[in-house]
């Protein structure tokens, strides 16, 4: 186990390095520049700014400088947010995205697994079709539709939750629901599929033959096997959720990290883009590792070697 973890961590380093490299050169290959706008900077000023951020040097030199900085833990200044460094931006936004995303993924897992089991036990009956339809609906409606609809209903009309803003736990209700809905859909479908497969397996048949109650079979035996496919899904899904979501942050006016994936790429804020990409890649690697470990814990057939 320990050697497995060590080896995976060792592999993670070159992977992360390659991610940084690919992202760096892709970002720079895109047309545009961070210093463009309606009001053009005087050419001399633009030159001075480019020099200030080292953007006037050849690309390989910039790459080496950037990599050197990252190794020292310096993600550089933001090119757009002139008063903030990339570390400030991530430091401000990430904890909030983490709270929001984590709550959403936990709720989505609980609800999704519940619905999935319910559907599996009633396979190909109206309840199953109903659950499937609801689940698909959850994935098929874009968040930029569900979010304002929920706000109109639960905030503006019923007044159950604040419309938007960051503050108390009540402010989290609507954004968490919006984030969780599509995940509930996916998770319930995965659980249903896994459950159906397991319910047909030999060991469940054996358990039935032994005369165990259906409830014990489901909860003690089947569930464990059924959520295996879920485990490999949850890693990247969690990484996606806890790094924030542009739509939810914009509509609910939340100080998360999600908008920087999009806005900074659109504005060519190179350093911020790189910072969030590194964070995201590190999270993906970590969560994948975690889900592999979980897999091994849940499935006795898998050995980590």
């Amino acid at each position, binding site marked *: 186990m320990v050697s497995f973890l060590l080896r995976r961590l060792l592999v993670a380093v070159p992977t992360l390095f390659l991610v940084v490299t690919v992202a760096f050169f*892709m970002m720079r290959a895109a047309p545009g520049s961070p210093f463009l706008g309606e009001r053009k900077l005087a050419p001399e000023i633009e030159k001075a700014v480019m020099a200030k951020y080292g953007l006037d040097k050849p690309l390989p030199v910039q790459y080496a400088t950037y990599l050197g900085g990252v190794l020292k833990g310096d993600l550089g200044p933001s090119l757009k947010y002139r008063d903030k460094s990339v570390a400030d931006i991530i430091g401000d936004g990430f904890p909030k995205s983490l709270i929001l995303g984590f709550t959403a993924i936990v709720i989505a897992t609980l609800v999704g697994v519940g619905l999935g089991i319910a559907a599996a036990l009633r396979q190909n009956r109206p309840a199953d079709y109903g659950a499937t339809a609801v689940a698909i609906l959850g994935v098929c409606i*874009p968040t930029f539709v569900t979010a304002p609809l929920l706000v109109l209903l639960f905030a503006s009309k019923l007044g159950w939750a604040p419309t938007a803003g960051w503050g108390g736990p009540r402010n989290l209700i609507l954004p968490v629901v919006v984030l969780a809905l599509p995940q509930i859909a996916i998770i319930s*479908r995965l659980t249903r*599929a896994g459950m159906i497969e397991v319910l047909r397996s030999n060991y469940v048949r054996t358990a039935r033959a032994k005369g165990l109650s259906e409830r014990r079979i489901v909860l003690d035996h089947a569930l464990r096997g059924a959520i295996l496919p879920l485990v490999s899904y949850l890693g990247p899904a969690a990484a*996606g959720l806890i790094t924030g*979501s542009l739509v939810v942050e914009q509509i609910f006016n939340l100080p998360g990290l999600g908008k920087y994936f999009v806005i900074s790429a659109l504005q060519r804020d190179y350093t911020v883009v790189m910072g969030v*990409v590194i964070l995201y890649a590190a999270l993906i690697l970590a969560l994948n590792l975690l889900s592999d470990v979980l897999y091994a814990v849940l499935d006795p057939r898998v050995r980590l070697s």
Partner: protein
Amino acid sequence: MSAFGPELAPGSRTGAATMRSAAVKGRSLWDDARRRLFRNRAALVSVIVLGLLVVAAIVGPYLTPYPYDQVNKNDVWVGPLSGDHLIGTDSLGRDLLARLLIGLRVSLAVGVVATFVSLVIGVAWGAVAGYVGGRLDELMMRIVDILYSLPFIFFVILLMVTFGRNFILMFVAIGAVEWLTMARIVRGQTLSLKQKEFVEAARAAGVKPAGIVARHIVPNLLGPVVVYVTLTIPAVILAESFLSFLGLGVQEPLTSLGTLISKGAQDMELAPWLLIFPSIVMVVTLMCFNFIGDGLRDAIDPKDR
């Protein structure tokens, strides 16, 4: 079920997770599979509905009384069933029915084009990696891992700003990002197919590796690949809708379901029909794909007998 998070959150891995079990035993199964598929009522209805939608998308735009891009200055924001616009008009007085049909056509085209690209790359990549194995396999799969660790939205935005002029090219680009999961599924299948007798026989008969992959491996991958395709098309359609939200969608006056919905969501209290009708068409389309995908999976899965 394919995975698309709030904003194309990563993780089309679900496909891999659920598809792992789907294997094809041989051609004789296909008749059987079709019979099973058509016995699944949800899938059957979906096939019919989707067929009608495809016909509507292809033929419909020629039959509407107004062209999709005709501005009718005197019919601005006309509601459904009033005047001679069946389901109303938008802020430029353009006939919503005509726009809906052309939007459906664009969305379907976009989904099919991107999926086809991901199919070609994914199958080739996965089959080669799985069949050759060893170092090459490791290298190829490492590349897949690295691309997985980059946020999907980052790729898409960069491709979008680079290829913005041509929307077909954009979706070729999206397809070029979407192939990762396909490659993983195909590789897994290939690994197991490689051991099969008919492959061994071909090898013994002196068929070259390229020939074996093309003639024996790829055709036998059809089952899981078809299932995955029916799940990727809706994922791409949804991805396009998020790009529309960012203003990176198809070029006006052309439109897509996603563009119609994201515009409609802004005016939901003023002109609800602009949100409702496109949403219904989008949800129905995506649901059909999902039900067909599910039905196919159940039908092809040999364990399900």
